[in-house]
């Protein structure tokens, strides 16, 4: 079945809501469990048996292209029998991105996925559902627990056929839609941003000026009675939209809630511990942690659970890191306490600092010794005395 499938990953996200973490990289490059989010999207598709993946980049596209081509080099791709293409195109929207790479899509069906979500949507089941329904388009969906007004909402009939789209509706619209159908749904159903299409749909996209799937293509398909279905399941899906959900995504990946998607590195037995290059760190640590490589730790430091340590970091003595994410090339002093916070690439943290309660330190920032940061966001390249 999967021979008739290929996939397009839309990796153009800027990630402005993740600032300052995205001050120097784009959102698909943001690491979750030491693994860039774009790699989660690639793994997700290849684990479903898809052999050809086209990635459309935009913001900081060259940087992202280099990262993808370094991670997924020709030797590795040949070993796993995967084709990854990162064409040079300039797109102006989700549908436009697919239009620009449509000549590369040569399978009966294709998946369109995003590079800025962490999910374990059962994609093989999703594709089978699409084929079974003989749908022209199928949209992945789930019941959302909060802020449904931020997403595209959908109403389905009893056969899972989509009967209405509400693009970022108001609360009043959701209320009224619940009265006209779907009153028994305990939570609103939203579009989670992964689509299956028949190849035929490309004719429509190529012959139109549609730029966006949610705002233009799907409403058109609905209005013109195309066979359009919703695939609703209860799966892990996290829109890594802000620094708090970013922290959660790291914790969830360490807990294996996104399984089979896992952090980078070799898992240590049945523990939730990953070492990159199987390099055991010289520091005591709990379960639910992952480490990059080439790190140096001082005496009596400790890495507590739900923490991620990148690569090439120097961490001093008597330093405790808990429920936090440290990116690469960071230098952290002695007697430092870091709790529930994120430290981006290349930061320097002086001795005796306390960083806690969702503090976010942008890349290349310097925090002088003795500073306490409580729920603060520090911009990239800044110095705090």
């Amino acid at each position, binding site marked *: 079945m999967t021979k008739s499938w290929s996939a397009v990953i839309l990796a153009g996200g800027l990630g402005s809501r993740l600032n300052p973490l995205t001050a120097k990289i784009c959102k698909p490059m943001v690491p979750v469990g030491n693994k860039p989010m774009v790699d989660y999207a690639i793994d997700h598709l290849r684990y479903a048996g898809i052999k050809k993946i086209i990635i459309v980049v935009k913001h900081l596209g060259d940087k992202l292209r280099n990262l993808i081509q370094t991670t997924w080099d020709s030797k590795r791709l040949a070993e796993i029998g995967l084709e990854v293409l990162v064409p040079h195109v300039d797109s102006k929207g989700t549908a436009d991105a697919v239009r620009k790479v449509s000549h590369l899509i040569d399978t009966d069906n294709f998946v369109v996925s995003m590079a800025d979500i962490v999910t374990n949507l059962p994609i093989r089941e999703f594709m089978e559902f699409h084929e079974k329904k003989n749908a022209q388009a199928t949209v992945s969906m789930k019941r959302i*627990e*909060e*802020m*449904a*007004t*931020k997403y595209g*909402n959908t109403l389905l009939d009893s056969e899972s056929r989509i009967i209405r789209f509400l693009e970022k*509706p*108001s*609360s*009043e619209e*959701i*209320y009224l839609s*619940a*009265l006209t159908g779907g*009153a*028994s*749904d*305990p*939570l*609103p159903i939203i579009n989670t941003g992964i689509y299956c299409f028949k190849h035929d749909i490309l004719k429509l996209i190529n012959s139109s000026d549609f730029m966006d799937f949610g705002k233009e293509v799907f409403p058109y398909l609905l209005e013109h009675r195309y066979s359009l279905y919703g695939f609703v399941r209860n799966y892990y899906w996290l829109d890594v939209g802000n620094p708090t959900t970013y922290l*959660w995504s790291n*914790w*969830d990946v360490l*807990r294996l*809630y996104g399984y089979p998607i896992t952090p980078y590195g070799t898992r240590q037995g049945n523990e939730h511990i990953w070492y990159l290059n199987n390099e055991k760190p010289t520091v005591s640590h709990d379960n639910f942690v992952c480490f990059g490589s080439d790190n140096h730790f001082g005496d009596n430091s400790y890495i507590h659970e739900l923490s991620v340590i990148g690569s090439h970091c120097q961490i001093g003595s008597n330093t405790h890191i808990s429920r936090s994410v440290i990116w690469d090339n960071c230098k952290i002093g002695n007697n430092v306490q870091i709790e529930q916070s994120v430290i981006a690439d290349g930061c320097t943290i002086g001795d005796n600092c306390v960083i806690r309660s969702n503090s976010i330190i942008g890349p290349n920032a310097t925090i002088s010794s003795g500073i306490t940061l409580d729920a603060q966001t520090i911009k990239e390249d800044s110095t705090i005395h």
Partner: protein
Amino acid sequence: MSEITNLKDIINRGRIQAIGNEILTPELAAKIGAAFGTYLGSKGIAVIAREYSNNNRMLKRAFIGGLMSSGVDILNLHSAPVSVLQFSIRRFGASAGAYFSSVSTGKMQNQIRFYDSSGIEFDIKKLDSVNEYLRQNKINRAKPLDVGAITDIPHTQDIYRKAIPQLVDQNLFKNKKQMHVVCDCSYGPGSIVLPGILTSLKVDVIAINAYENDQKSAEMYPNLRSIKSAVNIVKASQADLGVILDTDGSRALYIDETGKILTFEELMMFFMKYDPIISSTKEQPIITTKTASKIIGEFAQELGGFTLLKTRNFPGEISRELREQRGIFGGADTMKFYFPNYGPFSDGVYTTLKILEILAREKIPLSALIRSFPRTIHSYKSISTSYENMSTCKESLRELIQTQGKANIDYQDIIIGMKLIFKDLGWVSICPSMHANAVELEAEGLNAEKSEILIAKAEEFIQSII
């Protein structure tokens, strides 16, 4: 009393609480509404609801005026259980909510609770942020054309009534012989939803105190008299289950078919053992309060594989911990139970359905299902007293601790009575007896000796108030 300019003067245990129309006046409610609106920002949309009583109605209307003035749009739910408000915030994608209710102190206190976009009650930090806008009088007033809109959502109770049964196995109810439930709604808005939902599931319901009581009575519900009545009706009608909802509907007391009121610990163990989702999802932790009996931890170990995490019992704490830790189930010794597959908050209606679902599946009476549960090492004492003293004991204790500022003592309202927590000793629950004119003390100390000390201390308290 002088006008309140700092909410810290009336924030008690993480909630705004004060005597309605005396301290918590409509003028103050309007200011709080405007401060809350400023905190949300003019693009916010808030769901507002209340318990019955004119006090709550008055305060809610004044609050809405202030909230609209800050440009926030409002979905007006009128009277509803707090869990319907929390459901609505999530169901309609609102950014926040506020709920007006009475405090069960018998002193006509009202309280205002705020909820975030996931239906979780504000923590003290967020409440402080709202307070700062009020204290510094930094209210953002909208321009005349940008004043917030108000929309009635009258059919929300219908949406809730249809949605909640989807979260239990309805076939179990249809296929089993009809169950009988006594449902005391304590004159609260839970009466709008619970009896109807149970009836839709083919459960035979005897509903009591299930209407809006507009009598000018200071009597709070549930109280000793109403609880005893419900127990008697359960026994007399041979019901499978008795439910006594708290007035806001977020929690309840549960009575087995023999007339025994189930303890928090029994209910925790009941769900851990018999709920198929909880019992089979051991990789996700169970969250409970620090003051929960240690028997729950021992039972979790006995069942094997459960991780039990404890947090303090403060508004929204268990909900936040459940979300952060991705917990599978939660319970607070204030008789609140949390099922994250439904929502990160406690709902007396949903908890009732979960109990009935298990009864339908197991086909064994509730008393038999809990009979084998272990009991903790308690010290126990019964103190004879008058019926009147039994009725007022709970409130007198609360007043004693609050007014006299008893150091190192905390308390939890467990509906039927109080749980006093003594630092470095343990806890003692003080509840009126259902069978005699007496107050029953049960203590769980850090060790047996401390249990005896707890009983002695509690007895001292009781003697000072009766």
